[in-house]
């Protein structure tokens, strides 16, 4: 008969409607895992150096050096962490398991290369006047650390928590036990042990990836091809990690608050100890946040998308949308509540707490302000985690950029305004970004059906 043939379903097929985001869903929230690990490492190694009763100056030099390499490597690798974790999650969804390892090798090479290049460039500034061995060690350490952050964010994103934890424990045990020996050879010995420990840690983590996803190919650059990954995530990761460190850089470089430690490495004892303490205080809040995201929210999320993809009438979708909204609220609120309880407890007991940690001579008002900042930081990570669950890459990127700009400019302003306002720049910038991120999330959730069906992928 006349008439066009009737196999229509392929034209606008269902494929591509719901891009798969679950595995990488809260990659953003998880990238905060790296940041917490780093903070923990800085504090642990700082305490270690102190315990070893090395000369105070050596202790400060060691801590400053470690802080620098960790901060810089986090920022450099930030450009790859989210992008690559998401790339791998997409490949796993396609069941292209054999692609994981070769592309991981490619990404590792790239991120380590980037780490070394940045290290090389900065070494001319930071290590000026230091022996050549310092330059080389600085460059190599940056490369290795960048590789570690890429690998651990990948493994955590794929939920291999146990292995990551084990690898880190081993790596840091080596560092802790080797450092006293290293310090016999001065600062260089100490940081060389640090480098060796990190190198072993990287090998352990890479072995985990290999073990999980063996492949016949050694190296591939597929993740760099157009359409295979999302450049927005690279910028997001870069901005996010930069934003998390810009206030510290400013405190270090500001003449009134920072001091030269060695070479051109600077530190701000006034700001550094309280800020890392405040970050460490986030552990309970993050624990609740992850738990809620993983257990409650993901259930509501799956229920909604399964209904949208398969079986739900419009009425069902509205009902599940309400569930999703409530679950998002609960996740957000519970994490903050847990954190608030912890902070109140801490404030009630701050003297005995600080004494028991052996921390003396820090500014309590600044510490309290930074606790508030950390609290808001948790709120922002919760919102980011939710936004990344819904793959709102554009909103994530803009809020991260805004956070970097605001944290930089507000901190700069407070440094000019005087000690009474130290820390408030960080708090103020977070407040603004939180309001924005909250609006983004709310507007998306209000119209989730529209976005799901008419604008998949944003």
């Amino acid at each position, binding site marked *: 008969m006349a008439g066009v043939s009737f196999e*229509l379903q392929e034209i606008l097929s269902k494929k591509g409607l719901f891009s798969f985001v679950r595995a990488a869903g809260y990659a953003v929230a998880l990238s905060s895992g790296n940041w917490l690990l780093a903070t923990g490492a800085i504090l642990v190694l700082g305490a270690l150096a102190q315990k070893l009763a090395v000369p105070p100056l050596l202790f400060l030099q060691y801590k400053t050096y470690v802080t620098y390499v960790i901060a810089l490597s986090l920022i450099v690798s930030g450009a790859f962490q989210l992008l690559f974790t998401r790339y791998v999650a997409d490949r796993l969804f396609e069941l292209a398991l054999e692609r994981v390892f070769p592309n991981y090798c490619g990404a590792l090479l790239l991120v380590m290369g980037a780490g070394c290049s940045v290290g090389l460039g900065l070494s001319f500034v930071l290590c000026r006047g230091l022996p050549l061995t310092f330059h080389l060690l600085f460059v190599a350490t940056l490369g290795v650390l960048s590789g570690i952050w890429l690998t651990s964010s990948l493994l955590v994103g794929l939920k291999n928590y146990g292995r990551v934890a084990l690898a880190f424990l081993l790596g840091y045990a080596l560092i802790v036990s080797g450092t006293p020996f290293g310090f016999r050879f001065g600062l260089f010995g100490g940081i060389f042990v640090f480098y060796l420990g990190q190198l072993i840690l990287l090998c352990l983590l890479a072995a985990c990836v290999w073990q999980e996803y063996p492949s016949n190919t050694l190296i591939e650059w597929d993740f760099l091809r157009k359409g295979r990954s999302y450049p927005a995530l690279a910028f997001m990761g870069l901005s996010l990690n930069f934003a998390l460190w810009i206030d510290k850089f400013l405190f270090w470089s500001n003449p009134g608050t920072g001091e030269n430690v060695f070479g051109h490495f600077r530190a701000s004892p006034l700001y550094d100890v309280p800020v890392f303490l405040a970050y460490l205080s986030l552990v309970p809040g993050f624990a609740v946040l992850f738990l809620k995201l993983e257990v409650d929210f993901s259930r509501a999320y799956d229920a909604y998308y399964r209904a*949208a993809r398969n079986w739900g009438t419009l009425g069902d979708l509205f009902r599940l949308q309400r569930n999703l909204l409530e679950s998002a609220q609960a996740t957000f609120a519970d994490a903050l509540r847990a954190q608030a309880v912890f902070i109140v407890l801490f404030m009630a007991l701050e003297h005995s707490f600080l004494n028991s940690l052996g921390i003396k001579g820090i500014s309590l008002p600044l510490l309290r302000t930074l606790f508030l900042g950390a609290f808001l930081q948790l709120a922002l990570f919760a919102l980011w985690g939710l936004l990344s669950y819904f793959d709102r890459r554009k909103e994530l990127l803009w809020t991260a950029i805004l956070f970097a700009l605001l944290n930089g400019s507000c901190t700069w302003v407070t440094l000019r305004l005087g000690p009474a306002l130290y820390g408030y720049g960080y708090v103020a910038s977070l407040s603004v970004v939180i309001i924005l991120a909250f609006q983004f999330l709310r507007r998306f959730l209000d119209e989730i059906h529209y976005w799901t069906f008419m604008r998949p992928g944003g």
Partner: protein
Amino acid sequence: MVVVDKGRDIDVLFVIEGAYPYVKGGVSTCVQQLILGMPDVSFGVVFLGSKPEDYQGIQYFLPENLVYLESVFIFAPQKLSSSQKVTGQGFHVLQEFLEEPRTFAPSPALVDPEFYRTQATFPAFLHSRQSWYSFFVELYRRGGFTVPFVDFFWSLRNIFFPLWSLASVASALRQRRIRLVHSHSTGYAGLLGSFLKRTIGVPFILTEHGIYVKERKAEILGSQWIRQGQPWDRQEVDELQDLWIRFFTNLGILAYHWADRIYALYEGARNVQIRLGAPPEKTGILPNGVEVVRLARLRGSRQEKIPHVVALIGRVVPIKDVKTFIKGVKVLVNRVPDAVGWIVGPEDEDPAYAEECRRLARILQIEDRVQFLGFQNLEEIFPRVGLVALTSISEGMPMVVLEAFAAGVPCVAPDVGSCRQLICGGLNEEDEALGEAGRITRVGDVQGFAEACADLLLHEEKWKQAQAAAMARVQRFYTIEQMVERYRAVYHALGVKGGRSIV
């Protein structure tokens, strides 16, 4: 995609869905004959196909006076034009397409290409909040649907997807000088015809070789494609099938509404068109014609003796009810021991059915009497058969009957479509006076079918009478030349006068 453009004015623009010049068949043959038959008229063709890969290139030699040929693949992926607005206020108007056909009164906007360019653009259809809220969501809610929303959503997207490519084709054709638009079916072709009628303002005629809406409906209800994915229960499937049927029914009403003249092949089909919404005063009948001169030569190669061969000529598909034919042959063999049944036609459309038919012949133990010949050149078949037989449960105007007549073969056919008119003469009294060119049987009546065949094969004088009536009828009423003249008269009455260039 414009395939041919000789830059000349177009006297008659054919809008053809799924046929000429890419697919062989009745409609295509008719179109080719019209173009060849009016060398003084310049023709254009807009071919509507699904996707390029569904076709194997142009199947016909393109005549000199075919001055324009455009192929439009309405289900091919479209690029979003970035210049178009991603908003639109017109989506509630689009809802009309899915209204209850009884109350469907098409807004003029529905066939206005401007409307699709400004009020309800394609990007807006895919991505805007307006189309989401005032189209998808509203339709689902108002219709009280219970199917999963995702299935409803994709059905709707698929249903409406081709509208924009049709609108843009119509827009582009505004530049051309066209004197008349002639669609060969309702459906998407009828819609494009309506678009053109509305934008260019030239006369629009609609001829239907079958009844498009009925064919679509049968296809939708019988097809499995809608039932992909999970096995929904019947009720739910029907909601989506109902959407498609409503859409095609309304497309029919729309084309009938905008057409200036509506033609069917025979009276019965005309009545169906009226029932489906064609205003009676616009309707008329334009029968097909066959190449009598060519086919008449075959009469000379016939043997004196009537071959005891009965041939069913047609695709081996359920609608042709080949099984009744096979059973009929079984009964016929009892009366005419040397009778043989031939089944001439391709079997690839429904291989399972073809296999069932072969098995039936085996079970009835007449596998040596029923021969499946596959696709054959009919010029070699006609001289070797005594009767052409049809057992279809539905037919329009079967060309094979007219061809058999021209080749001097009487026919036995069921009382469906125009078969009675062809065999008994139903155009007028003169036609009736020519006598019976074979026999009419009841649908599915095995005994009656066998009786009719036996009666003609065993009685030479009756057979000769039928043959004479067949040849006289086709010569008098159903030649190509007459068909061409009838169309020419229609075009002429609507202002297209050939003869400027060639005659």
